[in-house]
């Protein structure tokens, strides 16, 4: 039974910032968070004195493992000069900072705090790919790890079940990849801000310069079908179905609704928030949906009084191409088994009726896991305020946006709905 929830008082977003996402040899977690924080401060239209921040909630998943340093709450509060204000780390694998958002919302809604900084950080690129895979596997079900499943493997298996049930194929997943790259091309903060076409042209140019045979790809799908250009990681997941290894940080400033106008005339209001938990692959009744997402969505829609059709744009957790297809169904944007068709028809493109992952998504913007949840909110902040530049969606009267974050193999899923009034 899922009861209808309510917030004790309203919560608004009045600032949002992120570092560039990518693989950085010369930037560590503190450097990246400082970048995100400084950008956030600059977005608060009427300014904010950091001394006024009551508390910090910070998402981080693997810094203990990757850089042998845990306990990131106080490291970051000290970095920002806001000690002795409380700093709490949240962990929900790849949804760690979405949990920070929820803690911040609850803390303000309860009346306890008025101004809360929520964010996330992750530093992953200083390890080998194998070590990163091993670190991330800490978020999978132990049974899966023991029989050789990797993260791409889990989503690969989910894809085969989806294909078998609905008649979709790899060709359909390529539409997700092509769209993500087209969007990221317009996002200067994205790790891969190039289209697939750009990548093809670069390769062709390089081959010509080296006097090597010039690849003859007719279109993007031919490139993605070429196993040299796009090798298997965990079939049917190929390299271009998978998000990269990334470093990055992001943060958002939450305040009580009644003081929001002290910070900006154009705040966003957190009208819906939901979170669910899910089981391992073997215990799922059906591999083609995530029960945790459906629960989170139901909770958030119930709180907001909104329906899936009211959500005009969304950032969803496309850690793998198949994941985006499933999420847009679980969130109610499209019927089960219809998501891949909607993508093929272009409905989720920047100029479609329901733009999804305008930032380029995890696939292209990058996925510094703990920074992803608040990073998604940064994109919605920009879009709803009309500040997304070249990738601004052309929807008139854009008011409602949402973010969906997934941790592990669906163990933790969240859904957050934002409104511009």
């Amino acid at each position, binding site marked *: 039974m899922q009861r209808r929830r309510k917030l004790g008082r309203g919560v608004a977003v009045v600032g949002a910032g992120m570092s560039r996402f990518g693989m950085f040899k010369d930037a560590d977690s503190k450097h990246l968070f400082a970048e995100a924080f400084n950008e956030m401060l600059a977005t608060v239209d009427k300014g904010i004195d950091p001394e006024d921040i009551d508390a910090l909630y910070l998402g981080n998943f693997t810094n203990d493992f990757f850089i042998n340093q845990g306990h990131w709450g106080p490291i970051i509060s000290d970095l920002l000069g806001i000690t002795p204000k409380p700093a709490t780390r949240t962990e929900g694998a790849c949804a760690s900072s979405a949990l920070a958002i929820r803690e911040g919302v609850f803390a303000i809604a309860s009346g306890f705090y008025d101004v809360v900084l929520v964010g996330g950080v992750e530093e992953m690129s200083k390890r080998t790919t194998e070590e990163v895979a091993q670190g991330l596997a800490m978020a999978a079900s132990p049974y899966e790890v*023991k029989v050789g499943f990797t993260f791409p493997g889990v989503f*690969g*298996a989910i894809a085969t079940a989806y294909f078998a049930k609905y008649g979709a194929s790899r060709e359909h997943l390529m539409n997700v990849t092509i769209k993500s790259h087209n969007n990221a091309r317009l996002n200067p903060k994205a790790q891969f801000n190039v289209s697939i076409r750009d990548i093809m042209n670069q390769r062709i140019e390089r081959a010509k310069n080296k006097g090597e045979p010039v690849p003859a790809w007719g279109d993007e799908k031919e490139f993605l079908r070429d196993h040299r250009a796009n090798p298997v990681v965990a079939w049917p997941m190929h390299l271009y179905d998978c998000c990269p290894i990334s470093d990055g940080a992001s943060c958002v400033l939450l305040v009580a609704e009644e003081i929001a106008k002290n910070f900006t005339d154009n705040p966003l209001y957190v009208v819906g928030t939901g979170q669910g938990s899910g089981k391992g692959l073997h*215990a799922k009744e059906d591999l083609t949906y995530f029960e945790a997402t459906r629960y989170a969505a139901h909770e958030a829609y119930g709180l907001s009084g909104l329906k899936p059709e009211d959500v005009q744009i969304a950032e969803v957790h496309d850690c793998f191409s198949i994941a985006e297809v499933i999420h847009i169904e679980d969130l109610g944007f499209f019927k089960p088994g219809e998501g891949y068709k909607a993508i093929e028809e272009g409905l989720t493109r920047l100029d479609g009726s329901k733009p999804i992952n305008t930032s380029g998504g995890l696939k292209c913007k990058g996925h510094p896991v703990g920074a992803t949840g608040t990073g998604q909110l940064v994109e919605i902040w920009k879009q709803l305020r009309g500040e997304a530049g070249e990738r601004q969606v052309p929807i008139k009267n854009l008011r409602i946006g949402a973010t969906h974050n997934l941790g592990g193999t669906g163990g933790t899923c969240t859904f957050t709905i934002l409104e511009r009034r």
Partner: protein
Amino acid sequence: MEVMPFNDISYERFLKEDKLMGSRCQKCNALFVPPRSICIKCHGTEMEWVEMKGKGKLVAFTCIAIGPPFMMKEGYDRQHPYVSGVVDLDEGVRVVARIDGVDGSKPETIKIGTPLQVEFLHRGEADSSKTFLAFKPL
């Protein structure tokens, strides 16, 4: 004889003896593989051990080209992917397992719905020995 606790350590011990074991809730009859000590259907805590016959069907799979070190040590690599999958047992429950006896480099030859038979893969020596749950086509 004392009943083995319904946990993952017991489950792994049974695998070493070539037994795929689950727990059955004595209150509501729900079956769980691997075993659970708390029934997720009725929240009952009285369990009994049940051995699976080891027959089932493939419901999902993946051919993994980049795997963890313990799999790479067995000789799998980008040219020789291994296969992991989800198997629907005849008893009506599912397990995750390695899928043996199929060619991971030819995924198009692996079909969902294929009838499978359990297999226990013993790897390593003495104290460091491990048993992997696997299934192969019947």
